[in-house]
């Protein structure tokens, strides 16, 4: 099993005629994902690798069941595109676009909550369930995905898209495949935090352990630590914390939009302490992750 997506999941791509969207569409199709349509206003009637392009999301949802949408439109159009998909009944939104002001992200998240939809991202590479489906650019072309990702019992969540692949590659090489890998996004406010995705992994019988990649800034790691303590999770968690040098450089932004140390709670030292106190193993190096996982499986 997997979370969020599976081999029969259908999705659309909003902004499908854009350069990056065209690549992403090709990669997902090559990996076997079911893309049932694309949207670019004014371009109805064209196709992208055989995927028909429409003007409106409703043109697709009126005829076909749509599980999700990958949104990859310029920042100033993203909120509108996400609202359109949610109001058309789409329940899973993967927002690839970066540089969206957080006020607009919060509006998307608030509408998603009202309509019972889930947002992954923004500023993320999407979701990948090995041998099932890929929704977004995560892992790149299908041939590269098959080298780095393997099917297995580990759920992966990462604030960095690139490091999602690096970590899955390390796990695969050690014989630890993945149930689903989620690039959750690098912004200060994102649709789904670690703690918000944990219940899904918890409910997936094939997931036996969780690996997360984390960074300075925000309260997501503290939120996860609280969740673990309050929910007596069956899943052991191993975390890797990057950006430790940033503890000495308050006010400077590195890596991602949400990665900045503004107060003590933003530091890696504080996060590591909280996670360890909640029973989460913290790896010093990426290559230490597989052994720490195996110890607790």
């Amino acid at each position, binding site marked *: 099993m997997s979370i969020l997506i599976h081999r029969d999941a259908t999705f659309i791509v909003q902004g499908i005629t854009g350069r990056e969207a065209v690549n992403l569409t090709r990669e997902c199709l090559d990996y076997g994902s079911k893309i049932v349509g694309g949207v670019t206003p004014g371009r109805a009637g064209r196709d992208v690798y055989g995927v028909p392009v429409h003007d409106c999301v409703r043109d697709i949802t009126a005829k076909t069941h749509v599980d999700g949408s990958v949104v990859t439109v310029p920042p100033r159009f993203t909120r509108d595109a996400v609202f359109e998909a949610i109001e058309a009944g789409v329940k899973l939104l993967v927002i690839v676009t970066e540089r969206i002001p957080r*006020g607009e*992200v919060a509006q998307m998240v*608030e509408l998603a909550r009202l309509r019972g939809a889930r947002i992954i991202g923004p500023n993320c590479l999407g979701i990948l369930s090995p041998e099932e489906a890929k929704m977004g650019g995560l892992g790149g*072309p299908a041939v590269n995905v098959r080298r780095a990702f393997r099917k297995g019992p580990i759920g992966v969540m990462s604030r960095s*898209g690139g490091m999602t*692949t690096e970590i899955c590659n390390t796990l695969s*090489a050690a014989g630890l495949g993945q149930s689903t890998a989620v690039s959750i996004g690098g912004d200060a406010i994102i649709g789904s935090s670690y703690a918000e995705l944990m219940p899904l992994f918890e409910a997936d019988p094939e997931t036996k352990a969780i690996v997360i990649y984390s960074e300075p800034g925000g309260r997501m790691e503290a939120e996860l630590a609280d969740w673990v303590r309050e929910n007596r999770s069956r899943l052991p968690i191993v975390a890797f914390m990057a950006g430790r040098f940033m503890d000495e*450089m308050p006010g400077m932004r590195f890596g991602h939009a949400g*990665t900045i140390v503004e107060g003590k709670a933003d530091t890696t030292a504080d996060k590591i302490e909280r996670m360890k106190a909640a029973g989460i193993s913290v790896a010093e190096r990426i290559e230490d992750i597989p052994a720490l996982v195996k110890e607790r499986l």
Partner: protein
Amino acid sequence: MRFYEYEAKALFARHGAPLLRGRLAHTAAEAKTIAAEIGGAVVLKSQVLTGGRMKAGGVKFADTPEQAETAATAILELEINGQKPRGVLVEQRAGVAQEYFAAVTWDGRRKLPVLVFSDMGGIDIEEVAETHPEHVAQVHLSTLVPFSPFKAKEAVAAVGVTGDDLTRLTPIVASLVEVFLRYDLTLAEINPLGKTTDGRFLVLDGHVDLEAEARDKHAKLLTELGIGKEETRQARPPTRFEIRGAEVDASDHRGVAGNVVEFDGDLGLVIGAGGGSLTLFDAIRKHGGRPANYCEIGGNPSVKKACELTKLILSKPGVKKIAVMMNVVSNTRVDIVARGVIKGCVESGRDPADTIAIFRIPGAWEDDGFKILGKYRVEYCDRTVSMFEAARRAVAKMQAA
């Protein structure tokens, strides 16, 4: 992007918040003139983008224009946390009977703006929240339902304020929320919000942080407030090296060579992407390496961009070698980065084999990339070598050189 106090106050005033009389002076003579215009006691405040102003001697009081001139001279010369003041804000001095705190910021967990109000202003609000929680009210705001002033009233009333004070404070706090929402701020704070001995409420000090992503959207406001496009307003001003790094990134729309940050070491870094750079920078330091810079390449930069970035880093005095490293890449082509960094070495008059301590970028088009690197006898490794181990090899080569 942080505003100076005088800019924050100018923004609040546009939306009806009551301020003390006063304005910004760039010279001591100007400060004297402003003090004379105001007449009577004034306060002079250094305009810096850092805290600890009072302790450092950046705030002074004066009873006459002459005293104001002397105080301004001292303040304008005083560096605070390495920052030279933009100017000195000369304001009327008010008799304050009580200080309040009002701020709007983001609650990352709830993913909503939160209005925080306290009748114990002027001191550290987090401390107040811990020691006197009943004096701190928090009201979350919707980003979809239009804001209405009753939310401000509820926050003010929640700490026990009533009567005329409640009706006078409510519109000031409501206007703060409106400013926060309208301009994509990440912080709008009035602290202290003072009540004078004659019963008026005034903005005594203000903080504003604008989200970097929203700069273009609010370009008109920034122009009107006199904030230049070139002002990054980071924790420290950019160095010449960093400005040139931004120019390299802007010179070509293909891919990213972003966030070039200068450090004082001798090992140049061509690293990426966002998370990979954080991981690799830690790894270099863990092995005792001294980075000359930080950067984030990604999104498949062109040969030219990788080449120019390499040249920039090699032009920094004292840089002996560079390490070229990324996480397993999927959208960036290994061969293109390899071509770019080799070209950068050659155009800098350096031997790539000697200059590139290690090349660790596995992923798309790696076979082509490795072939090119082999031709120039550059040490490279594939995904079986970890990022940490690659960093170790780079540092070891530096130490042996």
